């Protein structure tokens, strides 16, 4: 037998109650290779990663590292074998310093006490290797998401990993930060680390991967060699069909009324910056900008969750509106589909029905009490309208895929007859198929005369969906581009403060 692969997974199967999540999946990873795993949500990528990381135990199949079969039953086992999985939800502790996070659980000691000096020096050395000058004594809570990710990677390196698994590492990174991360991955590859890379961002996958394998419905769906990797090829691998990636021509009648008009709005984070914005009925205004440019703050203020620093003159469908709470916004017909789906969008412990009906319970009453039949019919209607894939409306929403969770949040507002819908990162972490469905739903909404404000860091999405693109920087709109003619370069130029 010639050199065994760094990692070989053979015939791994994992069954959950009612679902076969993985069925006989096999793959190989060589040292110094970047292997991307692509697939729609629910294809089994995360399950596979969790089996590698010791969170789940496979029902059948084997995992071998450097030709030796290993048994990974706990996250600690995975680390012992040199496997480190960095999950989408970062697991750094915000109340500890960078150095404390890097050495968490393996703190160097001096007698009975922590050897702080060594921790800080070693951390500094590892970070330097990653080309970062973050101070090891900084609290992680003060760092940006990208920096936190770097801390996670530093932690992995301090443990001598052979195999690094990155699950959607760039989903909340800015363009520059993503580029930094990709460079880092290239460096690690040179050191002989094997990297499993999971991402929905196909441009990145194309840029970084030596090979791509696809998963579909828990099974191997084939692979692409370096030369074969193309956008269309990857999409085909994931969905088994071609998805067009073109802009849908769309025009708004010139006499369409203004649905939302905001004048002189300033958010708490950027009290000196003023936003003026108008959206017509049936129009989608995309809001582009780097992370931290004040886009989400604007969305939250427009939904009444945060106060404005300066009270704007706000009109919805021609009527003057003042927002003191989200109840006021709902009253006025402004709704928000928030960025943090699991934290703010849905209540995971509630059923699909309860999530849909939550803001409408007052309208579903019989006497004092909630009318169970009315509520069920209401939720059922929303589920059918949006094509939410769920066993029943009594299913816990936390068990649905990200795309279906998002549809539940949209459905909840759709049922209330919105005038203005604000989407904050509507398709983050959602698979290609569900994305397309959400886009067509947005178009359907605008056809009914609803105005949409769509915040997105996904450039493809912004350019494909927006009738106009507003680019924000430091709480201010730097320019508004026509969706038909806007280019990625123009958007980025404005986003970083340049002139067109």
């Amino acid at each position, binding site marked *: 037998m010639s050199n065994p692969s760094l990692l070989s997974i053979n015939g791994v199967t994992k069954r959950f109650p009612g679902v076969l999540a993985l069925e006989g999946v096999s793959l190989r990873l060589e040292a110094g290779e970047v292997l991307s795993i692509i697939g729609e949500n629910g294809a089994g990528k995360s399950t596979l990663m969790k089996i590698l990381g010791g969170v789940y135990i496979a029902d059948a199949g084997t995992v071998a590292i450097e030709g030796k079969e290993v048994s990974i039953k706990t996250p600690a086992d995975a680390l012992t074998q040199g496997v480190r999985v960095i999950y989408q939800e970062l697991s750094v502790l915000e109340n500890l310093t960078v150095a404390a996070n890097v050495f968490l659980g393996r703190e160097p000691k001096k007698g009975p006490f922590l050897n702080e000096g060594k921790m800080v020096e070693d951390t500094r050395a590892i970070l330097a290797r990653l080309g970062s000058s973050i101070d090891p004594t900084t609290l992680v809570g003060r760092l940006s998401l990208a920096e936190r990710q770097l801390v996670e990677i530093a932690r992995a390196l301090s443990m001598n990993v052979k195999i690094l698994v990155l699950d959607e590492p760039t989903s909340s990174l800015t363009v520059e930060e993503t580029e930094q991360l990709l460079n880092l991955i290239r460096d690690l590859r040179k050191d002989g680390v094997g990297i499993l890379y999971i991402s929905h961002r196909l441009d990145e996958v194309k840029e970084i991967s030596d090979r791509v394998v696809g998963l579909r419905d828990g099974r191997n769906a084939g692979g692409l060699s370096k030369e074969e990797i193309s956008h269309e090829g990857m999409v085909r691998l994931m969905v088994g069909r071609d998805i067009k990636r073109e802009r849908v021509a769309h025009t708004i009648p010139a006499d369409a009324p203004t649905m939302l008009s905001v004048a002189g709005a300033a958010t708490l984070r950027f009290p000196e910056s003023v936003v003026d914005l108008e959206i017509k009925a049936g129009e989608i205004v995309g809001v582009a900008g780097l992370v931290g440019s004040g886009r989400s703050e604007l969305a939250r203020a427009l939904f009444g969750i945060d106060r404005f620093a300066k009270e704007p003159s706000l009109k919805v469908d021609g009527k003057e509106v003042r927002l003191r709470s*989200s109840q006021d916004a709902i009253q006025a017909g402004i709704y928000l589909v928030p960025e943090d789906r699991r934290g703010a969008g849905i209540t995971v412990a509630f059923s699909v029905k309860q999530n849909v009906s939550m803001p409408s319970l007052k309208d579903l009453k019989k006497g004092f009490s*909630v009318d169970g039949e009315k509520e069920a019919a209401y939720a059922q209607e929303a589920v059918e309208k949006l094509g939410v894939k769920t066993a029943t409306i009594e299913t816990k929403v936390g068990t649905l895929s990200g795309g279906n969770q998002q549809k539940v949040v949209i459905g909840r507002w759709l049922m209330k007859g919105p005038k203005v819908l604000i989407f904050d990162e509507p398709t983050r972490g959602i698979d290609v198929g569900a994305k397309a469905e959400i886009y067509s739903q947005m178009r359907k909404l605008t056809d009914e005369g609803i105005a949409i404000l769509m915040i997105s860091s996904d450039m493809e999405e912004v350019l494909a969906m927006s009738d106009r693109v507003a680019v924000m920087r430091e709480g201010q709109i730097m320019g508004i581009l026509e969706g038909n003619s806007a280019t990625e370069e123009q958007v980025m130029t404005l986003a970083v403060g340049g002139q067109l």
Partner: protein
Amino acid sequence: MTAKLKSLVGKELGIAILLILLVAISATINPNFISPNNLQNTGNLIGIYGIFSIGLGLVIITGGIDLSVGSLFALLGVMFSIWLTKSGLPPALAFFGVMFLAAGIGLAHGTLITKVKMQPFIVTLCGLLLYRGLARYIANDNTLGFGKAEGFEWLKQLSTGAFLGVPNPLWVLFVVATIMFFVLHRTSFGRYLFAVGANEEAARYAGIPSARIITIAYVLCSLLAGLASVLLGFYTNSISPSAHGNFYELYAIAAAVLGGCSLRGGEGSIIGILLGTALLQALRNMVNLLKIPSSLEFAVMGVVILLGVLADSLVRKKKA
């Protein structure tokens, strides 16, 4: 519908079985356990404890806690006694005075927690100290009572009387529990309590006025404690400000947790809280009647609560 019924019963079934077993065993060893006299007395206690345990359960469902209930009994009891026996207020007015004071205190808790964003534990811990201290100061550390209840016998009947052989506090609990069952499990307000407890952020983004919901939960908790304090005052007929109501908040928390409320919030039911209350009282009664040294009472209760919650965690773990 049957599936719904099953899930509703399933959660509380374990504790119901435990309760029946406990009663059966105790009754076999000492038949006095089910003598009319003993049942009357235990029923009385279940009535009083059940009322304020429901209130604390509501707060726990929102993910909060109220540690001040026991001290509130002392303060409200002292005020009630003074208003009735010293100030000579009309009984109805004294009763509403107690409820009004209780509501005000609940409102203060809720406001500090939702508007000033203080932690419920801290706010109500300070309440625990403050109300106890005030009660002792106002009463001059003297034990107060209601004497022969001359002029307000009818009010006292609410606590010490019986109707159709069932002690009145149990009737009061029946009314309170029925109303609160409806409120918690059938109204939008009840759903909001669960929503706020399960994920306050998501509740806010769904347009639920979470601050108001949480505040109302604390007001209801204090109000039910107020109602219970009137019954308890007449029941003991002696209010020693330094001891009256000591630890009662812990009984209520224990009852709620035994009954399936999670201290993380978002879970719980009225039936569960009632079963939890009954179990705790049956346990205390058992310690008495089975001649277990009364010094062991707390130890027995501690062990049973631990076992109950342990069994629940094990069942959940198996399900997951």
